[in-house]
Each structure stands twice: as C-alpha cells, then as structure tokens.
C-alpha cells in the first residue's frame, strides 16, 4: 500500500492521522465535561428533573467519547518515541516536563473522578458526586492548558538554550510555558471545544424538536446550546483574529500561506477569497480578491505593505495549498456558526425558537461543523509550521526516528484499519445514544437511592428505583 514512501513521509502521515482522530475527542469532551458540570449544578440548585435527565443522557455519551479520547491519547504519548525519537531526545527536556505536568495534574484527576461521576452517585451522594463532575471538567481544562502550552512552544519557542548534545535545555520555565502564541492558542482552542459541543448539543436538541419527542428536554438543550453558539461564535472570531495577528508576528510565512500571498504587496495586500493555489508557478489561479482588505485585517491599515512568500527561501516555505484551503474551510464554518447563533437570537426574540423547523434543520446540519472546523484549524496551524517541528530550530526531516519504512508503513495501515473500525463503531453508538431521548418519566433527586450496593451508609436500596442510563430503552437492537 505504501511502497516507495520513505519513513519520514509515512511517519508524518501516521502522526497526522492519529492526532487528527485524537483531537476530535478532546474537542468534544472538554466542552461536554463543562456542560455536564453546568447541568449537574442546575439540577442541584433548581431541583428540576429535566437537568438530571439531561445530565444522565449526556453522561453516557461522554463516557463513550472519553473512552475513545483516552485510548487514542495513549497512542500519542508513545508515538513521539516510536516515530520521532530524535525530536524526543532533543526537545524532550522542554516538552517532556510540560506533558508530565499534564499527566500529573490533569489525566489522573480526570481518571480518578470519572468513575465516581459515572457510577458513584448513590455511593457518595449528590454533593460529592457534583464535586467529582467538577474535577473531571477541571481536569479537561488543565489538560488543554499544558498540552497547548507544549504545542505552542513548538510554534514559538523561547526560554531555552542548546547543549552539546543538541538538546533544548530549559532556561526559563516561565518563558517556556507562557510562550508568545500560548494564550492565543489556548483561548482559541477552548472556545472551539465549547462551540463544537454547543453545536452537537444543539443538533441533538433540534433533532428531537423536529421529531417531537421529549419536548421539555429537547427544548432545554436546544435553548442552552443556541445561547452558547450566539455568545461564543463572535468571541471565537475575535480570538481567531487575535491569533492570526500573533502568527503574523511570529510565523509570517504561515500567514502568507493562509492568505495565498505568493508575492509581496508594498502598497496594501488584497484579501483572496477563493482561488486555486498553483505551487509550481507560485501563484493563485482564478483568484477572487478584495483589494487591500488583507492589509486592513492584518495591519489595520489599507495601504500597509505585506511581505509575500517571495521573501521566504523555498526550503522554509510551508505547503501552501493545504494551508490555504484548510484556513478557508475553518473561516467559512466559523461564519456559518455566527449565522446560526444570530438566527437563533432572532427566533428567540420572535418566540419561534421551538417552532422554526428551518432553524432546527440548520442546527442539525451544523452538528458536525465544529469538528470539521477544529480539524481544519489544526491542519492550518500545524502544516503551516512546516518544515519545522520546533519552529526555526529543528526541522521535521531532522526529527525522525532511525526506523525502517516497512515498520512505519505496517503500523500506519494497522492504525488506519483499527481507528476506522473502532472509532467508527464508537461514533455509531454515540449517534444512536443521541437519537434515543427517553420519553418515560424518571425518578428525581429525592426519589430514593439508586443502584446502591450494601456498603454505603445510604438508605436501603429501592430495587425498582434504579435509574436506567438508557432511559428505559433496551440496549437490544
């Protein structure tokens, strides 16, 4: 299947493939953990059953998504060593401790309290259970902090020196952790996770509003999700703009590729809306452009000069076509999200939020949009980092393990087969769970202990009071 490919290309394909699958799950579980925390809190505060029902509904989906995130994440933590050994040896002294802190402060926290959040309500009581939910949500955010700091350092490295073995040696941990692109990337990614989750929750709510099942819960989740989309989508566009300006400062070649600026524009650069990058001729064919708008966006001045890729040596140029397209996909989806959010505000004002079927259909259609935008955004920033792993200091070609191409090819094929099978099945189960919003009544907070074994000081078990996570539906299909 991969004859004639060298180990470097195969290793890059493998990393791109496994990390692309992996990012989907945290993007969802970061947002969903926070949503569960909110639902859990609302239930304890308002004692309204709808929040408890929604908590249980999303909790089950979270468990499946989180499991997929864990196993695809373990692969990442070992792939640095198997395929990128030289990178690991050289950048390990800087990257390793950041990831070590991620494990110590986030992964254990999530894992330690996940079991209690999923299975422990009747053993620890509602308050401690709420605390556990909070710890899981906090863990996902701490995890994002460390890993985005490590990733950002690869884009905007600082605070280090080099030793005789060619290793990056930490000099200032403060500078390493708070490297220039980290605050922007962190904000952009966490908002992306929230937005992605809001769209998934909104699509699920809209689906059930269209199906006219379980109106109360469908309404509640749709309304919450649309508030989130309306508030976060504009913030995300601002955050993305800020990150773009930061990238222009530190990785101008990436912005040139995003913009499709092969040439320098001394008197104001046009914004290329569409076009076909032609890397051989170093130009954008069939470009549809708005004069000077790029300079206005990037420099806040219509006539500001902008350098193009003609100022960058060819061996430092990122792959333009990939970056150019992925960036446009992300931007288009971002504005579609903004549109959905504004439309929902309008419907809310007109009191048609629950009845406008076109809004519901649009929300269903937009359900997976967040994932596509997240992937497109990551492709933009990571491909735009090429040809370096540590930007400006360590080239990708110098980072690879001394490993034979057949080893990488075999493992790549294995990952492709396994991931499509395993995560395909998981996605199917999640979609099926989403489609089953229970109609039947469920016990509320004080309806008695549920699923209790005889070891806790809780009152005796009410055999019939057991909450069924599937909401009364059989697993049988």
């Amino acid at each position: 299947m991969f004859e004639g490919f060298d180990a470097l290309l195969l290793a890059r394909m493998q990393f791109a493939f496994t990390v692309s699958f992996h990012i989907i799950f945290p993007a969802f579980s970061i947002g969903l953990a926070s949503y569960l925390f909110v639902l859990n809190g609302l239930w304890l505060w308002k004692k309204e059953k709808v929040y408890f029902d929604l908590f249980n509904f999303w909790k089950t989906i979270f468990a499946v998504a989180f499991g997929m995130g864990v196993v695809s994440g373990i692969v990442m933590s070992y792939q640095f060593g198997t395929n990128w050994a030289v990178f690991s040896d050289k950048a390990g002294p800087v990257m390793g401790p950041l990831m070590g802190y991620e494990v110590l402060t986030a992964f254990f926290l999530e894992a330690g309290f996940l079991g209690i959040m999923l299975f422990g309500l009747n053993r620890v009581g509602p308050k401690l259970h709420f605390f556990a939910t909070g710890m899981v949500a906090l863990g996902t955010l701490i995890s994002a902090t460390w890993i985005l700091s490590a990733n950002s350092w690869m884009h905007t490295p600082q605070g280090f020196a080099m030793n005789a073995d060619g290793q990056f040696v930490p000099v200032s941990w403060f500078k390493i952790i708070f490297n220039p692109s980290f605050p922007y990337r962190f904000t952009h990614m966490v908002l992306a996770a929230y937005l992605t989750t809001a769209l998934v929750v909104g699509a699920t709510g809209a689906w059930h509003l269209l199906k006219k099942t379980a109106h109360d819960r469908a309404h509640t989740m749709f309304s919450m999700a649309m508030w989130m989309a309306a508030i976060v989508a504009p913030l995300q566009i601002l955050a993305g703009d800020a990150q773009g300006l930061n990238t222009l400062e530190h990785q101008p070649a990436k912005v040139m590729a995003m913009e499709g600026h092969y040439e320098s524009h001394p008197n104001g650069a046009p914004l290329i809306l569409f076009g076909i990058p032609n890397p051989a001729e170093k130009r954008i064919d069939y470009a549809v452009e708005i004069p000077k708008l790029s300079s206005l966006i990037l420099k806040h001045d219509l006539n500001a000069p902008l350098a193009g890729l003609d100022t960058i040596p060819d061996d430092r140029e990122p792959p333009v076509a990939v970056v150019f397209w992925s960036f446009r996909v992300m931007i288009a989806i971002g504005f579609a999200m903004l549109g959905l959010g504004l439309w929902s505000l309008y419907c809310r004002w007109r009191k048609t939020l629950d009845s406008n079927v076109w809004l519901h259909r649009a929300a269903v259609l937009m359900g997976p949009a967040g994932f596509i935008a997240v992937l497109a955004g990551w492709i933009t920033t990571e491909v735009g980092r090429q040809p370096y792993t540590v930007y400006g200091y360590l080239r990708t070609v110098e980072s690879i393990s001394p490993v034979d191409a057949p080893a990488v090819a075999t493992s790549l094929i294995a990952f492709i087969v396994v991931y499509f099978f395993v995560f395909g099945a998981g996605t199917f189960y999640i979609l099926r769970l989403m489609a089953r919003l229970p109609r039947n009544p469920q016990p509320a907070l004080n309806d008695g202990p549920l699923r209790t074994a005889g070891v806790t000081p809780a009152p005796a078990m009410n055999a019939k009071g057991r909450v069924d996570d599937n909401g009364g539906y059989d697993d049988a299909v």
Partner: protein
Amino acid sequence: MPFDIAFIWAGIIAFAVLAYVILDGFDLGVGILFPFFPERHDRDVMMNTVAPVWDGNETWLVLGGGGLMAVFPLAYATILPALYVPIIAMLLGLIFRGVAFEYRWRTTRAQFLWNWAFAGGSMIAAFSQGMALGALVQGISVVNRAYAGHWWDWFSPFTVLTGLAVLVGYALLGATWLVMRTGGDLREKAHSIATKAAIGTVVGMAAVSIWTPFLAPSYLQRWFSWPTAAFSVIVPVLVAGCIALLIYGIRSNRDSLPFVAALGLFVLGFAGIGISFYPFIVPPSVTIWDAAAPYDSMVFLLVGAVILVPTILIYTGYAYWVFRGKMNPDEGYH
C-alpha cells in the same frame, strides 16, 4: 553529588511503571480471563469490578511514558524505536479493550465483538508488555544517541517466554482480584483458575530468573557481588514467602490474601529486574546518568511530582474505597 536527582527520578519512574503493572495488571487480567466465563452475566459483573478504576490504572502508563520523555529523553528515544512492534501492538490492544468498557453495553447484537475486543485486546497488551520487558532485559544497542538495531531485533525465545510469563501473571492478578471482589459461582471459578495461574506464574518467574543471568555476564555479576548480593539473598526469601502466602491464601479460600500475595510477587519480580538493571536504564550501555535530562528539566518536574504523586495516591485510593467490597451481582453500572 549530595542530592542525586537522576537517581531519585529513576526511582519515581520505576514506581510509576510498577504502579501501572500491578494496577492495570489486574484489570487486564480480568480481560484475559473473559474466555473462561462464557456467561453474559458473569462477564457483566467482571467488567463492572474494574470499570470505575481502569482509566486511572492506565494513566500510570502515560506517566511512565511521559515521565521517561521528560527526565530520561535518551531512554525514551532509544527504547521506543527498538521496541517498535511490541509497543504498537500494545497500543492497539489497549485501544480495543479500552473502548470495549463502554461499547459492550451499547449493543446486544454486536456484543460478542466487544467481548472479543476486551479479551483479545487485554491478551495482546499483556503479551506485548511482557515481550517489551524481555527485550529491554535482553539489551538494546545504542550508538550516537540513537537505536542502532533493526525493527525485529526484540524478537527471541526469551522475549516470548517473558511475554507468556506476564500474560499468566496478569491472569493470576485478575483471578485473585475476582476472588476478592465477587461471590458465588463466579468466585468459585475464579478461585480454581487462580490455582492454575499461580502455578503458571511461579514457573514463569523461575524460568525467567534462571535464564536472565545467562543473557549478560553483568547480570550474573550483579546478583553475586557485594553489596547487591545482599538483595540476591533477600529477594528470593521474600519471593518464597509470597508464594507460601499465595498457596495458603488460595487453599484456605481467603478473599483478599491471594490478591495481596500476588501483588507482592509482582513487586518482588519488579525489584529483581531493577537490581539486574541498575545503574543502567537501557542495558547494556546507557546508565540513568547518561540518559538524564538537563538538571532544570528534572528539578522542575520533581517539584510537581513530590506534591502531586502523593495527592494522586490519596484521591485514587479514595476512588477505590468508594467502590470497595463485594460486587452486588444485581448492581448495574450501565
């Protein structure tokens, strides 16, 4: 050096790996034993005994890997390419058995598939870990800070033996865990498997122990020269004690003792490997000081580890405490 930070870190990494081996050991063991329990209800209960804790158990593996990259980057960068195949196989095995925890409850029609995934994934992960361990004991050739061998060098009769030994050892941990955590027929069956797995584990450990000194003269030397020879006396005595406790615990049909004794065997086996290795982290040429990260990397993470590892142990212990005791067979988590 008044304060040998590389040595301290070697100890912490060893602790993380040991924690992984004994914790994920019993939950992988439960998966390995799945084929011996064809009843659906038994399998539900077995899986539920580990469902709330498996994720935390596996996190120690991530700490072992991430920690190694942070503080012994050279070891991370040479061991993983050398053990490419078993590591990838282990990861794929862990994927299958990890998702099975949730998927198995999400379908009836395809449940058989996730039963296989859980059992097969657990076996592949266990066998791969054993082979990886054996390959490390066997030695990895490192030249100019890079792995200098080929991608099948790890494979040998010795690594097959260590793979099988770990597989059987995990089955023992799983069986004794089930004896402790379940009741009725399920417990009886686990009890009878524990007997066989105990014999297999002891035979496996003995075979590996006898073979190891002949792999490299330095191993032989370390076990028979002062001061490490003191451990050579103590460890086998303790091993004999653990075996006696294990046999007594199984024969007198105790609940927890067999599990504790099996854990003890694993700790001692691990200590034995540590004695053979020291001071190397990648035998036969890279010592812990050769592989150590720059001082500032080690100090930075050590500050966190000193505070956080005990904290983790406390709340992980709490999570175990919450789900303690015999499983109620009617208690469904899903």
